[in-house]
């Protein structure tokens, strides 16, 4: 299958990725090749086969009781934040 420049721009927008002008044709080409390659899956006979949701047979996602288990370490975590003030994460103005 062949993707267009518009397809790539749309996927990048959905993925919240800004691409440079030079990157777009590279991804048009390589994603087209990837989707042609995964198109091989079409020939697999999967009628009546359940999708595999967990790699271990018979196991499902484990749940736990809804209890507080972690302590507040905001100050430590915010040492990695690009911009904070008074314990808050700063981002550009969202509401005018």
């Amino acid at each position, binding site marked *: 299958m062949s993707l267009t420049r518009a397809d*790539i721009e749309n*996927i*990048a927008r*959905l*993925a*919240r*990725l*800004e*691409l*440079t002008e030079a*990157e777009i044709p*590279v*991804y048009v080409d*390589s*994603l087209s*090749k*990837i*989707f042609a*390659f*995964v*198109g*091989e*899956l*079409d020939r*697999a006979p*999967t009628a009546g*086969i*359940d*999708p*595999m*949701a*967990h*790699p*271990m*047979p018979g*196991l499902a*996602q*484990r*749940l*736990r009781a809804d209890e507080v288990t972690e302590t507040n*370490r905001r100050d*430590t*975590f915010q*040492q*990695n*934040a*690009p*911009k904070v003030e008074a314990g808050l*994460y700063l*981002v*550009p*103005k*969202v509401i005018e």
Partner: protein
Amino acid sequence: MSAPAPTVAALARGLAEGAFSSVELTRAYLERIAAAQPSLNAFITVTGESALKAAAEADAARAAGRAGRLTGVPIGHKDIFCTEGVLTTCGSKMLGNFVSPYDATIVSGLRAAGTVMLGKLNMDEFAMGSSNETSHFGPVRNPWDTQMVPGGSSGGSAASVAARIVPAATATDTGGSIRQPAALCGVTGIKPTYGRCSRYGMIAFASSLDQAGLITVSAEDAALLLGPMSGFDPRDSTSVDSPVPDYTATLGDSLQGLTIGLVREFFDKGLDAACEQRIRDAIAVYEKLGAKVREVSCPNLPLSVPTYYVVAPAECSSNLARFDGVRFGHRCDSPKNLLDLYCRSRGEGFGAEVKRRIMTGTYVLSAGYYDAYYLKAQRVRQLISADFARAFKECDLLFGPTTPTPAFRIGAKCDDPITMYLNDIYTIGANLAGLPGMSIPCGFVDGLPIGLQIVGPHFSEARMLNVAHRYQQETDWHLKTPSAFA
């Protein structure tokens, strides 16, 4: 101190007998790391100061009679594992300034066992790559020939163990990222069963496939280190509550009556003829040890690469959505608005291959394509998994090559993602089915190492390590060292 002994087992004996201290040993390895860094680029961060401090504590613990089997043994950690107070980059510009506020469970487990961390090892960005060329911190080089790739994504782990600049290293495997570099660097690699080792603090790539493991010189070393990394962790919702045996206790067991299945689909037209001969030679050693060999078929296995390149990117696009430039990680300069902040921070922070995988995943999960790609791939995954289950009714373990060829030249496969993805053609199946897999050195082709792959049923690590160990008692491929680093 002279060149360090080659294995963790030998180093542990030396420490126990007082032949050298952990401080002396750690210092010797730090010197080897510094000497090899310009040629191999295997490390992203060397933690020399804290390593010497931990080594002194290990020596004090030993003097006080509190030493365990691994007390004072230095190791390296792949830079995908969070290490408290230490830079943890995952090979990405996105996390180029990230100092982890906590330890991964396997890191604290190995520390509690007495190991000393030498530093953080280079890797493909977010573990997405098969050659270590996607790292933001530059490619790692193969110690057998520095013009060649070491494999990936755990290229730093494999290259550093092969060059004997670390005794052993942690690693991760989503589609072959432990076994493939282990094969290309001539070292031993084990990817345990999905859920065997906690994924807590291991930066997520594809959560239904990711598993922590080890790269070591020998199977015995892997058996020594796997115990402290294994076991149930309430902090990983996919951790499996299954008893952890002493993996060293059964290493010497007899192989009489073992049935080895040769997977027909692993011996396909893509397999290099000289590599195939080394695999056949290794199988002959097993026959001499009393194993029976039969051919088995996993007919859906040739679909494992296309299946993987739907499932893994889908999970990656979802996992990497957390990198938004707000709470941690790279942020672009002077964002115009919130959307601009997200898009430019991500566009600048991620490298080319990571962006390719995120976009592939975003597309296969998007409205109108989910059934055709994602659900279809999950159904094929079920078929592949059923093929393995059927094969294990006829044999105990599956054998085959780890890779179709020896290591390739740096730059040779960068332009074509499909060619690069096909490096993992023999390893991906085990990840899709959650099975444990190993690669052990079994010879050379044109001076470059080749790996024999062993795949077992769920939780058969002890048997696999036993089978690998018995081979390593009959052969010395695993003890070969590249001459430049001898």
